[in-house]
């Protein structure tokens, strides 16, 4: 789901830089409002977790690989604003140092994974969990469903952005300049693997870590 440089034309990656800027501003405001200096390590922990969990490539036998992102999970402990920041920091380091995701596509990747996972995924978790006790089963179910929908929405945004390049950018010879795959290819290719495998992996990681924290340090879960 890390879009590399070259797949998105300037209209798309430019728009997504414009879209992510106010979200980063919102995230920094949220950190200012809700985070005490003593909680800053939690932001670092979230970002480190997101970075490391994305290294665990899950294979489809004979096919492609994918991975969890941790976005919804992090938001359960830090709130969605700080979680977007945590995931964005991981994605930016991945792009600059490891070439995982493009430099031009940083806005796109942070928007897709951060907003879908940390904002929408967390929103669904909150909707299901309501005001239930931090140790309740409702929290776990909400987290699993939120994480699953979050990563699938991120995948859908990615597939959509990749798929519209054949319409947006065509060379003088009529051939696509950037991602050459139309929506009819990108949507099924990316969505099927996320619906049936990577989404489940994301939900599992989220549920397992949350269950562990519920037992060991429930005070970390936001009420």
């Amino acid at each position, binding site marked *: *789901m890390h879009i*590399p*440089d*070259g*797949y998105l*034309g300037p209209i798309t990656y430019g728009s997504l830089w414009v879209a992510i800027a106010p979200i980063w501003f919102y995230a*920094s405001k949220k*950190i*200012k409002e809700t*985070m*005490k*200096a*003593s*909680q*800053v*390590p*939690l*932001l*670092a*922990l979230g970002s*480190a*977790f*997101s*970075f*490391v*969990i994305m*290294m*665990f*490539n*899950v*294979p*489809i*036998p*004979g*096919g*492609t*690989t*994918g*991975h969890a992102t941790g976005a919804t999970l992090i938001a359960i402990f830090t709130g969605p604003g700080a979680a977007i*920041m945590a995931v964005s*920091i991981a994605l930016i380091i991945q*792009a*600059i*140092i*490891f*070439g*995982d995701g*493009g430099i*031009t596509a940083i806005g796109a990747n942070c928007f897709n994974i951060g907003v879908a996972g940390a904002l929408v995924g967390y929103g669904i978790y909150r909707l299901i969990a309501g005001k239930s006790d931090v140790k309740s089963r409702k929290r776990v179910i909400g987290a699993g469903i939120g994480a699953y929908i979050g990563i699938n929405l991120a995948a859908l945004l990615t597939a959509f952005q990749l798929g519209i390049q054949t319409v947006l950018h065509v*060379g003088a010879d009529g*051939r696509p*300049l*950037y*991602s*050459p*795959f139309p929506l009819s290819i*990108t949507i099924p*290719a*990316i969505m099927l*693997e996320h619906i049936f495998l990577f989404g489940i992996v994301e939900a599992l990681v989220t549920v397992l870590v949350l269950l562990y924290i519920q037992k060991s340090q429930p005070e970390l879960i936001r009420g």
Partner: protein
Amino acid sequence: MTNSKFKIQDLKFRKLWIGIGILILLAPIGLILPELLKAGGAWGEWGADEIAEWMKKEGLEDYIPEGLKRLSEIWSAPIPDYAFSGWDKGLKSYIGYIFSGIIGTALVIGVSMLIGKIFAGENGNS
């Protein structure tokens, strides 16, 4: 921040930091499993050199899109694909992967602490 405050935080999150450390050491599973099951990279994350092959697989005319080729060369990452040059196969690649995990995590923690300090600083600490 004084040292005493750092100690309190370290105690609070110690178990979780150990968890991150264990995950870094286990990260090569993310290389070994795909190798065992003959899985390639993620869909749509191919280099300009591989894309024509995939276009052919999807039933499209295979060529390297001009803009894609140009933009894909915009940045050369220092540690591409979490692998060190000459250390891209077998045991060496797994060790390199762990080193990449350590380097990446250290950078991510550094940037997060900096950003956290800038924005959360005003709230003081409890």
